[in-house]
C-alpha cells in the first residue's frame, strides 16, 4: 500500500516537474467524474440492478445482518442478471458501497454458502479494500490516459516544430515514466488484490464462523466440487483385490488443476477451520 502511494507520489511529482501540469489537470477532472460515479458505473457494466428489501427479502436480510455484524453502514444490494456465478463489492467509500450477486450465483449456492460469499464481500467493504482498489486502479487509469495523451502530443507536437528544443526529450522521458508506473503499478495492484482476497476470506470466516462454507462455495464456483467415488466401498474393495495398486490413484487431478489460487484459498480456509476447532 505504502509502495503504491510512493510510486504514485513520485509519478505526480515527476509529471509536475516536466511541466505537464495542464495535462494532469484535465486527466484528473475526467477521472474524478468517473470516480464519483464509480459504483453506478460498475453496477451498470455488470448489468446489475439495485434491489429493495421487498424485491429480494432473503438476500437483503443476509446482507443487512452481516453489515450490522461487521459494523458498516447498510450497502446497496444489487442483483446482476448473469448466468455466470459471481459476486462483487464496489463503491468509493463505506457509505457509497454496493454488494452485487449474479442470478447464477443465487442458483448454485445454498443459504450458508451465500452467507459466506456475502461475508467475503462485506469484509472487502469493511476493510475499505474496495476504496483502496478503486483508488489504486484509478491512478493506473490516470497513468494510462496520460501516456496516450503524451503519445499524441509527441506525434503532433513534433510535426508542428517545437518551440522548445528540449520538448521532445522531455516528452520521451515522461512517456518512460508513465510506462514504468503502469507496469509497476499493475504488478502492485495485482499483489495487493491477491493479499486482499486472502484477508477478506479470513474476514468472512470470522464473520460467519464457518470457514468451510466459503471453501465449499469457492469450490462450486470453480466447478470442482471435490470428486468422491460413486462406487460402494464393498464393490471398490473387490475391484482393488485384482490390482496391486489402488484402482483410483491420487495425483492426476492435482497435476492438471488449472486453478491453484482457489486451491490455496480453500487450503487456508481449512486451516482456519482447524484453528477454530482447536479453539472451540
Amino acid at each position, binding site marked *: 500500500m505504502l509502495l503504491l502511494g510512493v510510486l504514485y507520489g513520485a509519478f505526480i511529482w515527476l509529471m509536475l516537474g516536466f511541466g505537464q501540469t495542464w495535462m494532469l489537470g484535465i486527466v484528473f477532472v475526467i477521472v474524478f467524474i468517473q470516480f464519483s460515479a464509480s459504483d453506478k458505473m460498475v453496477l451498470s457494466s455488470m448489468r446489475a440492478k439495485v434491489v429493495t428489501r421487498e424485491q429480494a427479502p432473503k438476500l437483503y436480510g443476509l446482507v443487512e445482518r452481516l453489515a450490522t455484524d461487521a459494523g458498516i453502514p447498510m450497502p446497496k444490494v444489487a442483483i446482476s442478471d448473469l448466468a455466470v456465478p459471481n459476486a462483487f463489492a464496489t463503491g468509493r467509500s463505506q457509505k457509497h458501497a454496493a454488494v452485487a450477486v449474479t442470478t447464477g450465483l443465487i442458483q448454485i449456492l445454498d*443459504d*450458508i*454458502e451465500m452467507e459466506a460469499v456475502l461475508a467475503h464481500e462485506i469484509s472487502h467493504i469493511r476493510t475499505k479494500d474496495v476504496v483502496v482498489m478503486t483508488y489504486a486502479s484509478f491512478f493506473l487509469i490516470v497513468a494510462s490516459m496520460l501516456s496516450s495523451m503524451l503519445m499524441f502530443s509527441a506525434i503532433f507536437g513534433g510535426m508542428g516544430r517545437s518551440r522548445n528544443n528540449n520538448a521532445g526529450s522531455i516528452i520521451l522521458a515522461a512517456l518512460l515514466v508513465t510506462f514504468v508506473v503502469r507496469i509497476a503499478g499493475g504488478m502492485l495492484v495485482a499483489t495487493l488484490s491477491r493479499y486482499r482476497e486472502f484477508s477478506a476470506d479470513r474476514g468472512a470466516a470470522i464473520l460467519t464462523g464457518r470457514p*468451510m*462454507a466459503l*471453501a*465449499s462455495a469457492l469450490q462450486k464456483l470453480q466447478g470442482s*466440487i*471435490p*470428486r*468422491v*467415488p*460413486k*462406487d*460402494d*466401498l*464393498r464393490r*471398490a*474393495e*473387490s475391484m*482393488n483385490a485384482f490390482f496391486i495398486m*489402488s484402482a*483410483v*490413484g*491420487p495425483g492426476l*487431478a492435482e497435476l492438471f488443476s488449472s486453478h491453484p489460487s482457489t486451491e490455496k484459498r480453500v487450503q487456508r480456509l*481449512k486451516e482456519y*477451520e*482447524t484453528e477454530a*476447532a*482447536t479453539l*472451540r
Partner: protein
Amino acid sequence: MGRAALRFEEQLDTITTGEVGALIRPIEDQTMAQTKAEIERALSGMDRTQFHTEVTVDDQGHGWAMIKSSNLQELAAGAAQMGDVFLAAGLGERVVAGVFPFMWNDPTAGRERTIYWVYQPRIRSFTPFAPDGPHANRERSTDLEVRMEAAGRSLLPTARQTTEWYPIWGMPF
C-alpha cells in the same frame, strides 16, 4: 480411535451411537450362513462380558461384526480387541473397513443425523462419510464431509484425497 472419539464429542458436538462395526469381505462361494458362522467363531475368542456383540450379513454378502456399548471407553477397547481376534482367526486381510457412527445435530437442518468415520485398512486412513437422508436415496453431503475431514485431521490419520472417500450404503446401523 477411542481418544479421538472423546475429542470429537468434546469439540464437534458429535456423540457416538454406542456402536462400532467391522465390515468383512466374504470368500468366494461362501454362503451368508457360512460367513456369519465364521465371524461368530472368531468373536468367541473375545471377552464378551463388557459389551454386546452382534453379527449380521448384508444383502451384498458382506459380514458385519458389531459391538454395542453405551460407554465410549468400552466401545473403543472392544474395537481394539475385535481387531486382535480377527487377526488371530486369519480374518485380518478380509476386514474392508471399521465403521464408527456418530450422531451429529445439524444446526442448519435442525435435525439429528448419523455421520460415519470409516477406517480403511487398505490405505491405513480414516475417511468421512455423511449420507444425506435415507441410505436408499444414495445421497451424501460432500461439503459436510470436507468439514469433517478438516476437523478430524488433527485427531485421526485421515485421507485427504477425496477420491478415497468411498460410501458404504445400507449399513446395519
